[in-house]
């Protein structure tokens, strides 16, 4: 094992990078240095986080690489970080996507490069910190601090309605998370502990659990987002710059799912049991409704945003099935969606950079001019649909297998959503890529360049890798998930 504080280094390396960049004076010549410094910092973070995976002990269900020291003297609040099977891939997802985001914004961010890079580095620190926290208050601090850089990223570098979108994003998520703060304090009052590890169990009376569950639900349902709390998402996605959408879809939505697994399932098992019908209903509505809405969209980004809500519906179904297949499926679906939707947003970014529009009508026949682009786009599109061999399939398949144990109505709903997802994605693909070029402006559009290849090819490889060798990812998380399921079943059996 490693005897130096690896997790803390991973968390704070981007922050240190940000501090260094803060002191570079920005002008025409140095902005390229700022970009390189950011890229190298994020790449370094990614390589370090790979060590986490390589050194990970698959036979240990609880936290590894733990670091703990007392922070506040007056109550049991610790700086306590560590990684288990559930958070491992969330951290990897964050560290993997951030350098790609930096590369994706290499040329199209022209104003305020320094602030942009600072925001991204700060965002990376808080994202990793949030997934690595084993202390609820620490988790909360990171959870809310995510809002600051994301607000700035949408608000400064976003599209026309960016101000509306950034406010909606901030206030919506803040409203959810302040209720979580109250829940955290109530938990602390009842147990005198803030340790996630300790609270995984059944410490609260039934009625307390119900209220706590609702408070956490408010926070995570907005974040993930579940229907009907999803309305901030299309706005935020459409208005955010490409890299902002990538992080939003790739990592920030996963915070909700991660929270559900850790808090709702792990800490409030009886209340979870009580609310499962609610979650299932909302999820099925979300899958069917948002798929239909996605079908009607004319803006590519908005379509992908709505498809995210539908995919997250599958995730919530998987989580609240609380069985091995369901949870593994949900985790796989989250990882897969993190890669696929990030890649789809990057693909949209590619053509947006060239044509500065995201209207589906505008495009058509891109395959004639951009064969390589058409190929990678297809991989991601199929990944989103859930074709066997891509990452999307594993998650959806596992969730549906798990759902059969629960109720066949849920299976029907989920499967219907999956069919609809094939409909809207293939329809989108057909309209953009196939056919002949009818729009003259597209006549001399260029295929993806080297930088874009560097961004998209690793994503394409990992989508396929995930689809062919799912055990590579499922093995590390299996025991941690089993632990949660066992606790859950013990709590509900008595």
């Amino acid at each position: 094992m490693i005897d130096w504080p690896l997790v803390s280094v991973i968390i704070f390396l981007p922050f240190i990078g940000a501090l260094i960049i803060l002191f570079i004076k920005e002008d025409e010549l140095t902005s390229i240095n700022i970009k390189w410094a950011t890229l190298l910092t994020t790449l370094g973070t990614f390589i370090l986080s790979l060590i986490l995976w390589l050194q990970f002990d698959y036979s240990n269900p609880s936290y590894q690489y733990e670091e703990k020291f007392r922070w506040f003297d007056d109550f049991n609040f610790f700086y306590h970080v560590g990684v288990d099977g559930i958070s491992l891939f969330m951290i990897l997802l964050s560290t993997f996507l951030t350098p790609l985001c930096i590369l994706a914004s290499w040329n199209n961010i022209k104003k305020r490069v320094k602030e942009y890079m600072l925001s991204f580095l700060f965002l990376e620190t808080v994202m990793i910190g949030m997934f690595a926290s084993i202390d609820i208050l620490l988790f909360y601090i990171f959870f809310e601090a995510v809002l600051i850089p994301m607000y700035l990223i949408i608000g400064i570098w976003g599209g026309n309605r960016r101000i509306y979108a950034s406010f909606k994003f901030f206030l919506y998520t803040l409203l959810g998370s302040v209720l979580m703060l109250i829940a955290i304090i109530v938990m602390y009052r009842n147990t005198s502990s803030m340790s996630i590890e300790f609270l995984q169990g059944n410490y609260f009376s039934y009625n307390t659990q119900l209220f706590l569950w609702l408070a956490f639900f408010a926070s995570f349902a907005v974040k993930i987002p579940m229907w009907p709390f999803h309305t901030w998402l299309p706005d935020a996605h459409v208005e955010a710059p490409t890299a902002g959408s990538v992080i939003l879809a790739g990592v920030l939505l996963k915070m909700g799912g991660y929270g559900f697994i850790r808090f709702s399932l792990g800490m409030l098992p009886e209340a979870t049991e009580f609310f499962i019908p609610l979650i299932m209903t909302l999820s099925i509505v979300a899958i069917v409704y948002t798929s239909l809405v996605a079908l009607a969209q004319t803006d590519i980004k908005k379509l992908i945003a709505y498809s995210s809500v539908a995919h997250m519906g599958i995730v919530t179904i998987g989580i609240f099935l609380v069985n091995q297949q369901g949870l593994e499926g949900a985790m796989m679906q989250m990882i897969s969606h993190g890669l696929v939707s990030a890649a789809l947003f990057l693909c949209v970014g590619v053509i947006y950079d060239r044509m500065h529009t995201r209207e589906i009508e505008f495009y058509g026949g891109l395959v004639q001019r951009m064969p390589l682009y058409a190929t990678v786009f297809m991989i991601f599109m199929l990944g989103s649909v859930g074709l066997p061999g891509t990452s999307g399939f594993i998650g959806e398949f596992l969730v549906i297998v798990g759902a059969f144990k629960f109720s066949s109505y849920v299976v029907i709903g989920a499967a219907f959503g999956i069919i609809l997802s094939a409909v809207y994605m293939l329809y989108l693909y057909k309209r953009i890529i196939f056919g002949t070029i009818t729009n003259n402006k597209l006549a001399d559009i260029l295929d993806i360049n080297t930088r874009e290849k560097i961004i998209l090819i690793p994503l394409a490889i990992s989508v396929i890798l995930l689809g062919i060798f799912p055990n590579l990812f499922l093995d590390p998380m299996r025991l941690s998930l089993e632990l949660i399921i066992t606790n859950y079943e013990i709590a509900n059996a008595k």
Partner: protein
Amino acid sequence: MLNNIYNIFFIPEIFLASSSFVCLLFGLFLKKNAFRQTSNLAVFVLLLTILLVYYDSESNFANYKSLFSHSSFINFFKILALLGSIASIIISKDYFLGIKLKNFEIPILFLFSTLGMMLMIASNNLMSMYLAIELQSLSLYVAAAIKRDSISSAESGVKYFILGALSSGILLYGFSLIYGFTGSMNFDDISFYLSKYDNLNLGLIFGLVFVMVGLAFKVSAVPFHMWTPDVYEGAPNSITGFFAIVPKIAAVALIYRFCLIPFENFYLEWSQIILFLSIASMFLGAIAAIAQSNIKRLLAYSSIGHIGYILIALVAANDDGIKAASIYMFSYMIMNVAIFAILLSLKVKNEYLINISDLKGLSKSNPIVSLSISIIMLSMAGIPPFIGFFGKFYVFIAAIEQELYVLSVLGVLASVISAFYYLRIIKLMYFDESKNEGIINFQISFQSKIILSLSLFLIICFIFYPSLLINISASLTI
């Protein structure tokens, strides 16, 4: 008990009072630079007073006819008020010189007002409490109207005076009722007398309500907040800064002591009043601030909102509540010092910044200033990892300890509403395109820069070493 006559001068209040007179004479006899020199002297005097308060462990003065009391809570708030006063004198110096308001009386007024606040915080008797309140208020009435040739300043002074006098009258009436029904003016005696009864009689309830109304005026809690926005707006910016930073500290300490000492056994009676004041202040502060276009009015409503949160901790009425109040008050003071240090140095076309919309595009011309303002705003909104979050966090811990769930949920909801107007300022600076680029300039003196950097440092770095402040506030007894 005062055996040695020289020891009298080492009692902080007496030292401050006598030094204030020395400052007055000093300013009177100076021909040149009277304002600047007096300000410097005033800062020096206040620094010495802090040292005296800090080392004044037994305080003979406190025992004098039990007019004043002495406790760690009192000392903490005294030091807080003195620090706030020092900071606001330093940051306002250049502003006064800038608007050519060079009366050397201004720092003296601040000194007397600070003296009044120290007495207010320490008072243990209705009479001394009233006199102390009047001492600090009278100095502030004059300070509000100090810019004699400005109509708005005079208006705000008069408004403040009339409403202040009204509230003092109500307060005094309440005192007389309490005295009439308990036969004592001393907090401890009142508490002892009341401990024999299970419930308050009608006269005492009236007395309590009147005193609460008077105190609510002083802390500007809704619905007795009407003077605050107008006075903030009309007074010169630096006086507004003083209003925002210091008197609140004393008034909050006083309302805590008044509720928790003489009426500690009648929690149910006064907590209803405080509960209402708290909820109303939080929501009105949050909602009314949204529509403001004047930065001073916005800060007035923001301070009303903050008072609402501090009153939550009072409703909790436990040790955690006292801790929460002191941490919150500290963070409130730091944040206000920082924001006023910036506002008093920002000029738009040679006028000091008033309109919020003038902040448009500030991030292009002054990136560091706008970053600082953003941090302060996020901290005021209670977004972690800044100090403002921990203030709110401790308040909610105290409230939930007392099972005030509904109040806590209302509190966090109000904080979401208030986040909107804090974010609006960040939006103006960062998201909006600037029409008036280049005409905003930021000139700050070396001393103000130190104050500003120090308070920003505390706002940002509190999270890295919280134990210092938290251990102090945890040890406070009222």
